[in-house]
């Protein structure tokens, strides 16, 4: 069981900055995220895009901002449960919470802060009538274990980096790799496109463009697909179909936690501390809604700060906390480090 003061669900910019603000209050944080790396939509959707409205940064790349936030919170030693989705929550009699992920990892926390942004990212599934039936029976939306495909026939669909990268990787693993894309041009790194072209020349990747997978066939496991190639339909045999069309955010299991939801977001008390209708559960950043809400990263930072102050009071009832400034009091990291402004002490003036 992972123990922490604040369990933060979502490792986007708001969740990450909450670790810093909690650290100043000596509160330990642990983060859960469905993605394999921190950063949320910044690293998943637009890592190379510049952001212009972060105070103090005339311009900062989305991935760079995440790198900086990770550096900023390092001293507070946050824990991470990545690649797992927070699935259930149980409130114990003492007011603390147990949050369990889809993989069974349990977390015990004094407070929970949902910083889920747009929600958990789920694969975008192609519009094929019976595709749900074949999920885990030959239709795979992620390549979790490449060995699954060893010496198998696979068809990958998509035109982005994931489709290109996995076609390249699996060319040496699978018995055959077919890459299907709706157009002739690919939206990926030039290097990857060139590698796929080379593999096509070598006969290691079978490229079918412009084309689309429109039907999946098989008894209890995929054994063939129907492709639409121009006006023609063509059936090809395969053991696996891997559609890689990116991710789309959904609120996910937290929608079933008994929280008040409005417009796909979690209602909070914005006049006070961004607490939800369940005491001890907060929602900060893009995932919350309240009158006047603005979905901006800088607003998420502000909400994270107020949330941490509230959790401090929740965990330490009656204990007086005076707001401190890092310029004055410095930062005491949990790792034993201390950062403070240099002080020039003049003992006497002649």
């Amino acid at each position: 069981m992972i123990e922490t003061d604040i369990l933060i669900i979502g490792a986007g910019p708001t969740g990450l900055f909450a670790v810093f603000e909690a650290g100043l209050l000596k509160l330990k944080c642990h983060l859960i995220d469905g993605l394999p790396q921190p950063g949320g939509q910044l690293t998943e959707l637009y890592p190379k895009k510049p952001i212009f409205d972060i105070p103090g940064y005339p311009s900062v790349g989305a991935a760079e901002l995440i790198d900086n936030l990770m550096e900023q919170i390092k001293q507070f030693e946050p824990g991470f449960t990545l690649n797992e989705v927070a699935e259930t929550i149980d409130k114990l009699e003492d007011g603390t919470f147990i949050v369990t992920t889809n993989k069974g990892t349990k977390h015990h926390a004094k407070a929970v802060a949902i910083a889920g942004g747009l929600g958990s990212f789920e694969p975008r599934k192609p519009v094929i009538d019976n595709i749900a039936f074949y999920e885990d029976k030959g239709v795979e939306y992620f390549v979790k274990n490449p060995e699954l495909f060893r010496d198998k026939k696979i068809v990958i669909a998509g035109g982005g980096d994931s489709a290109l990268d996995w076609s390249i990787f699996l060319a040496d693993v699978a018995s055959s790799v077919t890459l299907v894309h709706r157009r002739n041009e690919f939206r990926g790194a030039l290097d990857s496109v060139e590698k796929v072209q080379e593999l096509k020349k070598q006969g290691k990747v079978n490229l079918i463009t412009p084309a689309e997978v429109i039907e999946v066939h098989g008894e209890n496991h995929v054994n063939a697909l129907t492709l639409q190639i121009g006006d023609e339909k063509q059936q090809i045999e395969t053991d696996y179909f891997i559609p890689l069309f990116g991710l789309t955010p959904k609120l996910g299991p937290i929608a079933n936690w008994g929280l008040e939801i409005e417009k796909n977001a979690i209602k909070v008390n914005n006049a006070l501390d961004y607490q939800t209708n369940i005491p001890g559960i907060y929602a900060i950043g893009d995932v919350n809604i309240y009158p006047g809400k603005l979905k901006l990263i800088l607003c998420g930072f502000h909400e994270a700060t107020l949330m941490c102050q509230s959790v401090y009071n929740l965990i330490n009832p009656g204990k007086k906390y005076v707001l401190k400034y890092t310029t004055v009091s410095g930062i005491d990291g949990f790792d034993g480090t201390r950062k403070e402004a240099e002080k020039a002490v003049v003992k006497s003036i002649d």
Partner: protein
Amino acid sequence: MNDIKITIIDREGVSHEVDAPTDMNMNVMELIRAYELAPEGTIGICGGMAMCASCQCYVLNDVELPEMSDDEEAMLSEAFNVKENSRLGCQIHITPEIEGLLVELAPEN
């Protein structure tokens, strides 16, 4: 003239003729969000960077639109429910030239 008329058919099939300002550097996706013609979280997920196709719409009349950028074309090549007249709402900027535009929101995927 700062406002033009644009008609948007929402995902329920309901038609809305709305006033669209031409002096706010807005696009059709933002217009749809401003008038709340699609639930929050179902449109403009990537913020308008042609990276998610959640604002895909079908252009139903012959109002001339600017040509697609490579980004828009690439996104639509990966999106679902794509038709010949598909465009991304976030890439259609509101200018006086698109007065009378009629679009229908593509289904949410």
